[in-house]
């Protein structure tokens, strides 16, 4: 280990400020008593929050996003858990190709996923709406959920499961009585982070949702009108605070009961 390097420390601090400060302007201006987001600040107010609270479409969009997010995160966590189990427990033919296939949606431009889903959905003669959005979100969340679950499963000694099998428990019983409780913090982390990804996702929703806007789409539609911006700021500030809280909770859960200083993964 190196001892000290002050210039590098100062650079790193500035880099973190660069990462964090832009996002903090949203909460700052959401309390500013003006319709424009500019300096000098003109006083403290809650009126943008009251304005947001009185708008019914905000809550409609919020409900849509919650529905889509819950379904997407539950389904992707189930798919991802099974896949994570396969990749961590077995050595099998084609494992590298299958691994790449599961991770691929995360690696190609999202707009291409969205476009392909539109093409197949319309060719099948279906109407755009929340169903294709949810399907798209499951596709998009699964790789993240799998990476989270793999890092959790790898942290455990598989001899516990072997012991359970040796003592006469069948595969199903072993899963529910031994593996599942051990994986549970990881599973909850995967559910929470999957939900956040779906909740924040914009491109797939924008292309596939038709007339039912999700919350990011609602915000996108408001951003075009300068007069409607302040209440979006208030909404954005709430979303940032809530998201940060959920993500920290997920991190805490994922590392629960695991040795410290392990390799850090997304």
């Amino acid at each position, binding site marked *: 280990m190196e001892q000290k390097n002050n210039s590098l420390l100062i650079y790193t601090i500035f880099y973190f400020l660069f990462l964090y400060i832009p996002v903090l*302007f949203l909460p700052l*201006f959401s309390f500013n008593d003006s319709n424009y987001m500019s300096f000098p600040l003109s006083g403290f107010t809650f009126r943008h929050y009251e304005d947001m609270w009185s708008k019914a479409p905000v809550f409609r969009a919020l409900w849509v996003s919650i529905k889509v997010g819950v379904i997407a995160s539950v389904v992707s966590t189930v798919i991802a858990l099974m896949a994570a189990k396969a990749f961590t427990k077995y050595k099998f033919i084609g494992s590298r190709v299958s691994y790449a296939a599961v991770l691929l949606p995360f690696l190609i*431009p999202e707009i291409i996923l969205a*476009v392909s889903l539109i093409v197949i959905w319309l060719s099948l003669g279906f109407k755009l709406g929340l169903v294709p959005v949810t399907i798209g979100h499951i596709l998009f969340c699964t790789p993240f959920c*799998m990476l989270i679950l793999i890092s959790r499963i790898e942290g455990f000694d598989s001899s516990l499961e072997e012991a359970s099998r040796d003592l006469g428990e069948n595969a199903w019983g072993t899963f529910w009585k031994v593996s599942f409780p051990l994986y549970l913090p990881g599973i909850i982390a995967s559910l929470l982070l999957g939900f956040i990804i779906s909740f924040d996702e914009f491109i797939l929703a924008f292309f596939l949702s038709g007339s039912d806007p999700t919350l990011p789409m609602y915000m996108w539609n408001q951003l075009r009108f300068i007069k409607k911006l302040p209440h979006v700021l208030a909404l954005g500030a709430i979303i940032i605070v809530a998201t940060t809280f959920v993500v920290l909770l997920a991190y805490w859960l994922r590392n629960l009961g695991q040795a410290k200083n392990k390799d850090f993964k997304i």
Partner: protein
Amino acid sequence: MWGYVNKLYARSDNVKAYTLLTPALIFFFCVMLTPMLLTIAFSFFTQINMNEIDYSFTTDRYVEFFNKPLLTSLLFKSVKISFIVTFVTLLTAYPAAYYIAFYVKKNKTLWLILMSLPFWTSYLLRIFSWKIILGTKGVVNSGLITLGLISEPLSFIMYSQTAVVITLSHAWAAFALLPLYVSLDKIDYSLIEASRDLGNSRLETFWRVTFPLSLPGVIGAILIIFIPTVGDYVTPQMVGGVDGRMLSYMIQSYFGKVNNIPMGAVSAVIMLAAVASITMIVSYVTTKLTQRVA
């Protein structure tokens, strides 16, 4: 009979693994592979009017794409902007990842969480905050005017390629920091000490030892940033203006108001082909480089 099947099942890891992978692979085939193949198929069709498509095979749409200077220039610009973004993000994130890997001793986990946290906050809101900062009446301009440094708002910082590059470098920072940190953290520090003991300067040590050993992280970061940003839609739309417009804009309008699905499919396929070929070149070159180092 069933006993035999059960025995076979219990013995074969292949069968068990693929049973567990069934949902994931079905999803991959139905929701990703088939739709993409269908999109490729549509790129060979023709849109006759709003609702009708001629399904006879033609490569005319590809000819049309390359004959339209607007489309080729947007494609070129998408790739160029993504290249710059990738380079800027890596260059700015590297020292920070280096610091955390080699100098931070206490509370490493806290630093790592701080590094990845911005990635989880809404993408749309992160881009939006840059609109607040760079806008004509934004933080930078109004701040500078309040301080009396300028009298007219600076117009070049908003609605330009520069704005797109700044915004994307901020939005994708976590994707550079994490892979870089992981590969730097794996480096055996005694190798660096050995290099120093053998008389290499700090800079020489970095170029000959540390940087080559961190290449896996560099490659990972390049791919994970370059590929998605080529197709980014939100950032160019929100802060790019006409100057910062990218190919995604045309894809969206072909599927939206223009309603020319085959032409949109052609643009998407060409974008994917460009991304895939560049990715292959990058991985080929870097594997060669890594082999030479090892």
